[in-house]
């Protein structure tokens, strides 16, 4: 007989109680894992940021455009490798419920600056050639069943009218954290139309993407760009892509904080549940622990039995919770792709799950162990009978 076997057998002495505790731990770990994944999804854009990309936007606000003429001036600044630009289009497909990000962009440099966006060469060429074409993410294409050559109409909100696009490219992310739900089309197409319908809005871009030669130059180049357009009609604010993305998240910081708090509260609740189970278990077995001590087993052994059982139950529940996290996250990703284009369970989330389970298991065993060790053998033996 091995002590581990005794711990295993002890864990299943009250099958219903163990089952309910394991179930509780599984659900808690699943909920904790999913909430952590939601937070990760929130920060996915930040994680995908590159250190050698800067974003230049209007210093007043992102909703104010910048002149197209800035492009060449930015390109000539020392340390700048490449410049592209884009504009938030905000078009609606079918109705508002079918949301996805859609941008007008200058394709060649844009895709060069974003090497993580992978488009097959023939599709890339076709996309470059056709000004009315669009490149869409694989997940977006899958969601609506779009294929190469399909025509998609977006209803403009910022830029009025119905805009028709032919899908020429379907891109995939090189990495897991690349958003595959975006819709790109030619800025030229937008600009030409603006020239005809609203000339005052032509030759304007929403932001510049600036690729720099060396990430260490980010601060210098940012200062130089902003200094160049100081006191102009459209002053600029240049920041790293990461800072730019974080500025969006800061708007929703309170929500993230609440989600984080809820995730920790879940752990506290399950800690109380497991502690209750272990307290009941230890109270019932005080007599047995007294027998163990009588036979010469020390406090270390008794503590090992209680901690072992507590850890076994929590780790068992946590394992089920962790295993369930992946398929449930997949379902979440499908159902919430509109809000969370990237919804992947990060390895760090699993480590946190394991750490939380260990913390729960160890904490829950502390009080029962203290009680079991504190009781005198003679008093413990009196509890039997």
């Amino acid at each position, binding site marked *: *007989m091995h002590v581990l076997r*005794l711990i295993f057998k*002890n864990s299943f*002495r009250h099958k219903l109680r163990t089952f309910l505790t394991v179930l509780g731990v599984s659900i808690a770990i699943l909920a904790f894992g999913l909430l952590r994944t939601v937070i990760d999804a929130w920060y996915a854009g930040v994680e995908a940021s590159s250190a050698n990309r800067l974003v230049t936007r209007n210093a007043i606000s992102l909703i104010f455009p910048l002149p197209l003429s800035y492009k060449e001036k930015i390109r000539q600044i020392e340390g700048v490798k490449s410049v592209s630009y884009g504009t938030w289009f905000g078009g609606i497909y079918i109705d508002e419920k079918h949301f996805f990000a859609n941008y007008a962009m200058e394709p060649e440099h844009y895709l060069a600056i974003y090497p993580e966006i992978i488009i097959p060469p023939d599709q890339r060429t076709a996309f470059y050639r056709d000004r009315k074409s669009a490149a869409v993410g694989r997940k977006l294409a899958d969601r609506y069943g779009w294929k190469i050559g399909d025509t998609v109409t977006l209803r403009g909100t910022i830029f009025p009218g119905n805009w028709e696009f032919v899908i020429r490219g379907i891109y995939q992310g090189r990495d897991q954290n690349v958003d595959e739900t975006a819709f790109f089309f030619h800025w030229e197409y937008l600009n030409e139309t603006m020239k005809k319908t609203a000339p005052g809005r032509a030759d304007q871009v929403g932001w510049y993407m600036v690729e720099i030669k060396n990430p260490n130059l980010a601060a210098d180049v940012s200062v130089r760009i902003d200094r160049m357009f100081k006191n102009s009609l459209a002053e600029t604010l240049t920041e790293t892509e990461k800072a730019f993305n974080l500025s969006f998240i800061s708007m929703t910081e309170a929500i993230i904080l609440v989600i984080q708090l809820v995730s920790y509260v879940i752990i506290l609740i399950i800690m109380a549940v497991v502690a209750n189970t272990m307290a009941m278990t230890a109270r019932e077995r005080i007599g047995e622990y007294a*027998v163990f001590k009588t*036979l010469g*087993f020390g406090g270390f052994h008794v503590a090992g039995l209680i901690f072992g059982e507590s850890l076994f139950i929590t780790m068992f529940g946590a394992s089920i919770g962790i295993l369930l996290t992946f398929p449930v996250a997949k379902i979440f990703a499908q159902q919430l792709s509109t809000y969370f284009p990237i919804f992947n369970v990060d390895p760090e989330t699993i480590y946190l799950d394991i750490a939380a389970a260990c913390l729960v298991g160890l904490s829950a065993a502390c009080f029962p162990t203290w009680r079991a060790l504190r009781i005198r*053998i003679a008093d413990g033996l009196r509890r039997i*009978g």
Partner: protein
Amino acid sequence: MTGKPVIVEIINLYKSYRRGSQILPVLTDISLDIAEGEFIALMGPSGSGKTTLLNLIAGIDKADSGVIRVGGVEITALSENELALWRASNVGFIFQFYNLIPVLTAFENVELPLLITGLSKRERRAHAEMALSVVNLTDRIDHYPGELSGGQQQRVAIARAIVTDPGILVADEPTGDLDRVTAIEVLQLMERLVHELGKTIIMVTHDPRAAQMAHTITHLDKGVLNARPQTDL
């Protein structure tokens, strides 16, 4: 006394319990010698202190003052950890309600005290099987306590008590939960342990018939000893 060496020597032992601000004396100036190989019964009314005396001799409780020497070791001077180690190799316990671990088989229950010895798995197996054969339960080796009768469970408990080959067995009402026939079987088994294996048994009992099996009956009343030798070895 029988002329045999003394294995348990108790000198001026005092023990009291505290209940709130009140101090209740349980044992008062107890002095007692128990010879090696003796089968002694401790009798007395409830609350007379017999179980307390048994616990003190077995090293599972601490005296207020006085000395207890068992096999030459002054156990009243040992720390908790030292006492635990001492108990593991020197004392076997037989309880009224058997106190077997319900999720372990008869074999595993008997093997339990050996887990804290340095014995190998094979040696532990040999010892446990030997102890179970002494109590004539080799055919129930894989049975759980719930699958055994009261008498069989007590025999498993006796096997667990002797598996480490201790010199002393302490038994607290070992027949208290058994019917008459089974109680006699258990007592006969205990007598065999004294005669064939040379164990010293100290038994607390209320049952005069059980006490008849002992060589010496010692009465306790309100914490004071009154020894009446019954038979000589």
